[in-house]
């Protein structure tokens, strides 16, 4: 049992009646403190959640004013987020007329996944020059060759990205059966691979059809974009 040991002082003085050191049973107190510690440890949010910022292109309210952005088809890569953790990619662009043509003129659809060997390898392959420059720059900062503040690291990297004109232009489109985790994963992958220009846009009806054909899903009737 716990006790408080008191040292006896003043041995040479008057003889007093021998005092017993007061025994305090500390067990309940220790029990209570254990409980409180466990409670606080479980309820404390030690690491704060992080945020990832995305900016979506502004919606154009008047569809007649909409003009298709002019981007070179050879650099364009479309990423379609499919169901069950599948990703379909195809280069260039498809026009609705091409899809409706008999037989449909379709670009090759390449299936991949979210693993480092899948989409990351593909993206790094396409974005070699820029990814290498960013990685080398980071390396130099970490090893101490260049000493600058974290803010200027960020601005240097974004400068590198805006100067780049060899990397792919990635269009990300999500099929409705994809989930939110896929969406965050693909944006994260863009950050990891240092893709300079990527955009998140709405999936078109023919791309939905392409995903459905590739994934073997019977098309649903709810597709409102269908003309």
């Amino acid at each position, binding site marked *: 049992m*716990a006790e408080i040991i008191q040292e006896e002082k003043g041995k040479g003085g008057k003889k007093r009646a021998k005092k017993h050191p007061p025994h305090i049973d500390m067990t309940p107190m220790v029990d209570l403190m254990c409980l409180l*510690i466990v409670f606080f440890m479980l309820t*404390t*949010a030690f690491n704060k959640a992080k*945020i990832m910022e995305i900016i979506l292109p502004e919606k154009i309210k008047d569809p007649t004013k909409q003009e298709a952005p002019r981007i070179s088809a050879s650099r364009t890569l479309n990423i379609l987020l499919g169901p069950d953790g599948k990703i379909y990619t195809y280069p260039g662009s498809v026009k609705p007329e091409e899809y409706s043509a008999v037989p449909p003129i379709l670009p090759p659809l390449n299936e991949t996944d979210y693993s480092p060997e899948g989409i990351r390898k593909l993206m790094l392959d396409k974005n070699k020059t820029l*990814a290498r420059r960013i990685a080398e720059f980071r390396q130099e900062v970490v090893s101490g060759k260049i000493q600058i503040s974290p803010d200027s690291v960020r601005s240097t990297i974004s400068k590198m990205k805006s100067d780049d004109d060899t990397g792919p232009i990635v269009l990300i489109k999500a099929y409705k*059966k994809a989930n939110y*985790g896929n969406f*965050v994963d693909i*944006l994260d992958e863009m950050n990891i691979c240092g893709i300079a220009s990527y955009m998140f846009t709405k999936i078109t009806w023919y791309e939905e059809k392409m995903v459905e054909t590739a994934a073997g899903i019977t098309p649903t009737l709810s597709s409102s974009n269908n003309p």
Partner: protein
Amino acid sequence: MPKIKLPTQSPHIDMTPMVDLFSVVLIFLMLTTTMRQPEPANVDTPFSISETPTPDFNMMTFLLAPDGKVFMNFDNGPDTILAFRPKILQEMGKRYEIEFTEAELRFFQKYKSSIGVPILQMKEFLGTDDNNVRNSLNIGIPIDSADNQLAMWILYARQVNPSIQACIKGDSETEFATVERVLDILQEKNVNRFNLITSLEAAKINLEEIQQ
């Protein structure tokens, strides 16, 4: 040789240092703790490499549960005197012709969890003391185009607090259709900048791999 009898005594353990240590840990935890708010839905956020911490103030958070329910939360602003929460509720009340009492507004100001209560049930939600009743009313904010209360919440949240930022906290398993709907509603209200709440994960790419 005769056996030596040792007097059986209960061993004395001095617990004082242990108690001291416990007190220190306890006080440390009590002072540093920020209580984790119980949320109406369990949400496992996806991972990313982003290292930006979540801001403390001026946030409206959309909680997207895996079953497609949408909850919303916003803070009182950097100073409690500002009391954005009751003001937003009051505006909502005006829109739907519901008069909220002082007590109800005060309760709403202190209620820290996300809410997913249709506005017509809000009075009942704020009036009750029963947690079960409260949970049964927390069914998600209506987002369909006929009764788009989420858009109204966004509208008034931005009106009351112009510097509010949109944050999306979704479960990895939430279907994209729900996310897209919420993004659509936000864009209709001219919010084009979003923060996705994620957990930190490390990812490395080595130089050799790129040089191949």
